[in-house]
Structures are given as structure tokens and as C-alpha cells.
């Protein structure tokens, strides 16, 4: 744990990060920007895992291990997302959300 820093402060920061990510996810109109926002959200939660592991159950490692998994999954997800984005760009020359709305109506 970090000396002089309480768990509250860290959780505050991660919450802020999380909501910034949410804000981005909702307002951005570009697939890549949305991906970036998702990364923010994921990271905020990863920090929570780690911090709670460290502060509350220091003799366990579950939080850390889960963080690793999350990072791995995030990596896989990013790879897939990027490939989808590129594929999409080939098809419609755009990665704007509004151009991918064929599901609507």
C-alpha cells in the first residue's frame, strides 16, 4: 500500500477515470475514440482490483491475477476491434458511428 494515501483517494481517482471513460464512450462519434474510452473504463476497473487486493487482502493475489487477465482480454479485444475497424474502413471508407447504423430501422 501507498503510505499516507488512503484507499478512498485512490478509489476516487478511479471512479473519476471510469466516468470520464463513460462520458467518452457515449459522446464520441468515432469507433477508435470509443475504443479509447473503453480502455479508460477497463483501466479504471483494473486499478480497483489491484488496489483492493493490496489494501484489504494483502496476502492474496487474486486481484493481481485478474488484472493480468483483464489486460490480456483487453489486448485481444483491441486487436479484434482494430481489425474490425480496418475491415469496415475497407468496406465503407469510414469509421464514423453514423455510417454504421444499418441495424437501425
Amino acid at each position, binding site marked *: *500500500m501507498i503510505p499516507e494515501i488512503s484507499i478512498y483517494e485512490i478509489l476516487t481517482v478511479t471512479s473519476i477515470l471510469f466516468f470520464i471513460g463513460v462520458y467518452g464512450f457515449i*459522446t464520441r462519434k468515432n469507433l477508435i475514440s470509443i475504443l479509447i474510452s473503453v480502455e479508460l473504463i477497463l483501466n479504471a476497473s483494473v486499478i480497483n482490483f489491484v488496489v483492493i487486493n493490496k489494501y*484489504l487482502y494483502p496476502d492474496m493475489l487474486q486481484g493481481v491475477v485478474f488484472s*493480468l487477465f483483464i489486460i490480456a482480454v483487453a489486448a485481444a479485444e483491441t486487436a479484434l476491434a482494430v481489425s474490425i475497424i480496418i475491415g469496415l474502413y475497407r468496406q465503407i471508407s469510414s469509421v464514423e458511428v453514423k455510417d454504421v447504423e444499418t441495424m437501425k430501422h
Partner: protein
Amino acid sequence: MERIVFYILALIMIVFAVASVTSRKMLRSVIYLLFVLCGIAGIYFLIDYNFLAAIQLTVYAGGIIVLIIFSVLLVHHIEMELEIAKTSKQILTTVSCLLGLGIFLITIYSHEFNVIENSLTTTTSEVGTKLLSYSDGGFILPFEVISVLLLAAMVGAIIIAKGNKLTDKKDNPA
């Protein structure tokens, strides 16, 4: 000392996170994200998870960000400005995010965390042992699953990215 470092890191993260989700330049937005990720790595260092911090730096900052940058460069002109959402939507989102944040914080602050004072350092080998342990509380199965997932994602990514050509071939057998 740690306190100051933490606050600096927190400030960096928040500022760059905000910048990242509001910037109208794609590439900048990605670079700001990089700073945020580095800041997170810093936090990991602070709480003595060095291995995790290293992973964060290599996989995220090194891998994912590069991947995103590539994709940005592939599909965008660098100067291109991004569209932004309607002001009304921004405001609404902001309001609900702030409200949500408020709820989070109130919940967090009203909860008594049972903090255990400690300064244990976790070594990489401990993490490794845990990951590969197949006794109680071991993570060998998820570990394997993640491996398969990564493989599948890799294959999938390749196929999706190449998808057009495959169909082309089918369409034109000659």
C-alpha cells in the same frame, strides 16, 4: 513524498483522460491515453506491484497503443477533425456521469473499508506460481483459457482484416 507523487499522478491521469475523450484530433487523443496508461503504471509502482506495472507499460503502452495508432494512421488523415456530439447530449451525459460519480463517491465514502496496514512486496515468481497452480485457488484453467482466447483473437483479427480478399477470391474463381 508518496503522497505528492500520487497526487501528481492522479492529476496527470485525470487531465489527460479528459483531454483524451474531448480532443478533436484522433492521434492526440491516443497519445493522451498513453499518458493516462503510464500514470496508471505509476500507481502500480507506488503500491508495489512492479510486475503489473511492467505489464501495463509493455502491453498497454507498448502494444495496444501502438496498435491503435496504426489503425488511426491507416484510416485517418492526421489533420482530420473529429465530429463531436450535440451540446445537449454532452450536457446530458455530463450530468448523468457526474450524478453517477456522486453516487459512487458517496457510496465509497460511506463504507468502512477494513484496511490492513502492510508493506508486503509481491514478487513476480509469486504471481507466476499462482497463475500456474492447479491446487485450490490456482489459476491454471483461466490462464489456459486466456491463452486460447488470445490465439482465437489473433486468428480472428487476421481473418477479419483480410476478409475482403477471401470473398474476392470466392467471387472470382478465375
